[in-house]
């Protein structure tokens, strides 16, 4: 039997379909993206491709550019700083609002509340709905016209009378007064995008945490109860340390997910520039400007950032885990 199991041709043939897909569509394109990111070309055939060194990266990371002919400075509409800042803001909001909320619900649900499975199933449901649909649904909720639900609710409660002027006062990016155009101003658009993300994904993180808590050995919890631990103490000293690996996965998903996020903002706003993200900027550069080199440079930045953040988060969780143990 050993002889057949070590036969090289078999091994190769069994791996072949996976290798073709994996190398052809993941590994080779990463290398190609890296090469493209040092080039400038705007035709798909690559006929006008030329090597430009780090120029693409310089363009992405400078907020002002100089016109080579006149020497005048102008605002760079391909600047990636805002987009990256927005993505990081989404990541911070997700980690510090979404995950704690998910953890609190998961802790409560997993302690034998009547109907816990029904609650769990309902909270998880939005995860299955396409983000485009959720974005479009929320576009209607935020609609500044007569049909918009949010503004109608604010008007009915009389909140709009003081809330809208207050928001207007905080808006510096435009002189227009705020009358409920939630996705129309830089200052409100990002929060408007975060709320549907929170709505959709809180159930996802909650499900993972719930499954983790259900995996905590019963005798551990019983021993703690016999020792007279309160619910809060059990949560803090037994459950949370025990589900650290799952919390790590949740934090990685929340952070890299925010960096990569595209669907929601693209579906929610006619003009994504109010809450620009790296992916929406990349889409614009590729399909409005045909700047394939710049688009590739954004892809490379995203790949690198996702790897770095995944690594850093893993390291952070490892250190603390050792201290607890």
């Amino acid at each position, binding site marked *: *039997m050993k002889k*057949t*199991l*070590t*036969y090289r041709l*078999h*091994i190769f043939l*069994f*791996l072949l379909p*996976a*290798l073709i*897909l994996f190398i*052809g*569509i*993941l*590994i080779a*394109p*990463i290398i190609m*993206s890296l090469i*493209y990111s040092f080039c400038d070309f705007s035709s798909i055939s690559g006929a006008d491709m030329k090597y430009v060194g780090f120029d693409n990266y310089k363009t992405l990371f400078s907020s002002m550019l100089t016109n080579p002919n006149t020497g005048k400075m102008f605002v760079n509409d391909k600047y990636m700083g805002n987009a990256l800042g927005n993505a990081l803001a989404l990541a911070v909001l997700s980690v510090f609002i979404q995950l704690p909320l998910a953890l609190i*619900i998961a802790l409560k649900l997993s302690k*034998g509340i009547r109907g816990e499975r029904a*609650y769990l*199933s*309902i*909270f*998880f*449901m*939005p995860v*299955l*709905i*396409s*983000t*485009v*649909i*959720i974005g*479009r*649904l929320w576009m*209607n*909720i935020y609609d500044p*016209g*007569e*049909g918009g*639900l949010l503004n*109608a609710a604010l008007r009915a409660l009389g909140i709009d009378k003081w809330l809208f002027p207050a928001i207007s006062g905080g808006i510096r990016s435009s002189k227009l007064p705020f009358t409920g155009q939630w996705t129309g101003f830089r200052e409100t658009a990002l929060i408007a995008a975060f709320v549907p993300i929170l709505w959709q994904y809180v*159930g996802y993180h909650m499900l*993972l945490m719930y499954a983790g808590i259900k995996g905590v050995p019963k005798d551990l919890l019983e021993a703690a109860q016999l020792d007279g631990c309160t619910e809060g103490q059990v949560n803090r000293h037994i459950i949370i340390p025990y589900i650290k690996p*799952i919390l790590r*996965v949740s934090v990685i998903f929340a952070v890299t997910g925010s960096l990569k996020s*595209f*669907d929601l903002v693209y*579906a929610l706003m006619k003009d994504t520039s109010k809450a620009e993200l790296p992916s929406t900027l990349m*889409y614009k550069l*590729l399909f409005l400007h045909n700047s394939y080199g710049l*688009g*590739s440079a954004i*892809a490379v930045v*995203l*790949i690198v950032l*996702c790897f770095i953040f995944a690594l850093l988060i893993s390291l952070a969780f490892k250190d603390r885990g050792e201290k607890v143990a």
Partner: protein
Amino acid sequence: MNEVRKFKPSNIIVHLLLIVLVVINLFPLYWMLTFSLKTNDEILGHSYVDEATGERIRVEPNRVGLPKHWEWSNYSEAMNTGNMGQYFINSLVVAVLVILITLIASFMATYALTRLVWKGRKFMNKFFMLGLTIPIHAAIVPVYVILSRMKLLNTYAALIFPYAAFALSMGILISIGFMGDIPYDLDEAAFLDGCGVWGIFCRVIFPLMMPAVATVGIYTFLQCWNELLFATIFVSAGKYRTLPVGVQQLFGQYTTRWGPIGAALSIATLPTIIVYIFLSKRIQDSFIAGAVKG
């Protein structure tokens, strides 16, 4: 797991809070269904002149209530002029083929990684696991360039192969767990009965991997059913659009008409919800398997 459920007043507060969350969760979906069955006049309010008295009568907007008149024509409009039926079939074709390819490729690779004996197995395993951290952005420009040179943009293939490639790592990861549970004695017995590696794989391993088929299948299905970035770039035009692209582009046609928009959103949402109602535990388990192992 029989915990003693004591009556505690604090539980009532917990239930109240959970019910508030349930309402927040379900309300947008309820609202979507109601406006999918209304006319703009009903949603936005309107006024008309009463013929008998000549008076102008104002009808207040009905934003959140049930429709007064159920406007089913919104649905036929979304299906006919909005092409939602076609997009639905496209999504289904793509999803089914992606699942098939992912299952076959990842089961075969997993067999080589766990049952066959060779140097470099561990390295190859790590290599495939790289795919879990690579964002799809990595592939967009090069794959777009290749597809357009091969004249494959706006075809099913333009989505099927990229989706399968990006589903592969998770497929292998989940399969390794399931295949590890199959006893090696079965391989030995089949070998003594005269099976080669292919015989063992097809007749012993594959039939015993059915639980993995469900887990990998569900996970892969939801990944490609809802995917927008690849779909909007690789099949933006033509009759091969998937549901997310279709929904997105429908809005160019009906920017101001709420009914058909709501109908299109509902058509795209309801099948997933209905499947979820019947398979909720299974679907949740797939997501847990995907995350806990990742």
